């Protein structure tokens, strides 16, 4: 028991590591926010394009989506990070991470938004077009507002997954929360920072876990 407290909940270590973890948390939050934004926009964009029904584009989108839902995200991180130098572009780690998360998240969000759009009865579009609304007007004033209700539960669930995935940036040495925790663990020879990082994630993400469950129950078909 004492060993547990000394090694996992060591107050002295907590105090010494706090600044490092705070820096890491900031990076994690920035990364999460930016990547989530881009991924949602990318997914939305692709889903809307897909609803146009142009076969050639749809095939491309399907390939993209299938590919990046099948490829493990960690592999994607490495591919993005290690290939840029060969093109002579030096992409900073942060943006490599954003790119990887956007590509991966975008694929999942596309599927979610597509399902949402397709769930809206065709009659809605027919009525809108019959009234003279253009494709975009229909999409943004009629279809998407209704699709939001359908889309909300899986979208929050996916957002949660994306935030958890930011941790993978640690393998390309981005100083996000977990990397900093590992750093502190190494230099202080005490795993308390790891436990702290875990607890911080817990505090950050547990409400989202609960929210997802609530939304799924609320909007159950």
């Amino acid at each position, binding site marked *: 028991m004492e060993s547990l407290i000394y*090694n996992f909940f060591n107050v002295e270590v907590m105090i010494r590591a706090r600044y490092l973890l705070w820096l890491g948390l900031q990076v994690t939050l920035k990364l999460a926010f930016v990547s989530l934004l881009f991924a949602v926009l990318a997914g939305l964009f692709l889903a809307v394009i897909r609803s146009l029904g142009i076969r050639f584009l749809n095939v491309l989108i399907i390939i993209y989506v299938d590919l990046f839902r*099948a490829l493990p995200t*960690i592999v994607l991180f490495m*591919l993005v990070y*290690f290939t840029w130098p060969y093109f002579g572009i030096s992409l900073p780690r942060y943006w490599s991470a954003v790119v990887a998360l956007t590509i991966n998240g975008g694929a999942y969000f596309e599927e979610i938004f597509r399902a949402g759009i397709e769930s809206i009865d065709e009659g809605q579009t027919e009525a809108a077009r019959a009234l003279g609304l253009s494709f975009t007007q229909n999409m943004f004033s009629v279809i998407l507002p209704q699709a939001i209700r359908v889309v909300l539960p899986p979208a929050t669930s996916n957002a949660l997954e994306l935030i958890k995935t930011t*941790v993978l940036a640690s393998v390309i040495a981005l100083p996000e929360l977990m990397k900093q925790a590992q750093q502190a663990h190494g230099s202080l020879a005490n795993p308390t920072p790891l*436990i702290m990082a875990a607890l911080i994630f817990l505090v950050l993400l547990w409400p989202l876990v609960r929210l997802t469950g609530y939304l799924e129950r609320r909007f159950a078909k």
Partner: protein
Amino acid sequence: MNFRDLFYYFFNFKFFIITLPNLLGGLLVTVEIAALSLSLGFVLGLVLAVIRVTLRHSGSSRFLRILDLPLVLYVDVLRAVPPLVTLVVIYYALPFINITIPRFWAAVLTFVVILSAFAEEIFRATIEAIDRGQVEAARSLGLSYLQSMACVVIPQAFKIALPPLTSRMIAVTKDVSLASVIGVADLLKKARAAQSLYANPTPLFSAALLFTLLFLPLVRLSMYIEKKLAE
């Protein structure tokens, strides 16, 4: 930079062939971890779900319902904390309190408990969604509580649980490559090692190809199952 150079670097056939046996060995390890994690995690999740349903609905006993609390904690924590963090804690932190687990099994343990947490929630939700009348009919015929669960409730719950469960199982399988971070000689680790050795990223792309070949059919399969069961 022309196409030939591009190909030399990223899709070098010679390197691909040389590294293939090594990579396939890594793939085997990945599949082993995945198979163990999926089967054990699935079973553990189902067991936990039945336990929780029994605890939550033992109407009269407040004590039993309180026993549910540690399980709630288990399930919520493992679903909220990123898998990589859980993995690192299990492999690097536990030794400090005298629990040392070899990497392979640390990885398996991590994914078993993570999957069990997600599976528990899915099973529990579907079991609780089954109409009470089903249990009443079974009990009124003389079936015991466990018999009612096994023969009437769980078979019905299973059908509803399958789509979300399969997609979660695929997600966990993809996470298995995280094991490379703690040094398990899986496909990704071998690919990175080969990449450093030959100073050429082709092995990484080969690994990506192998992963895609492995997962694409699984993703398609789960979409098919979802469609079929929606009828």
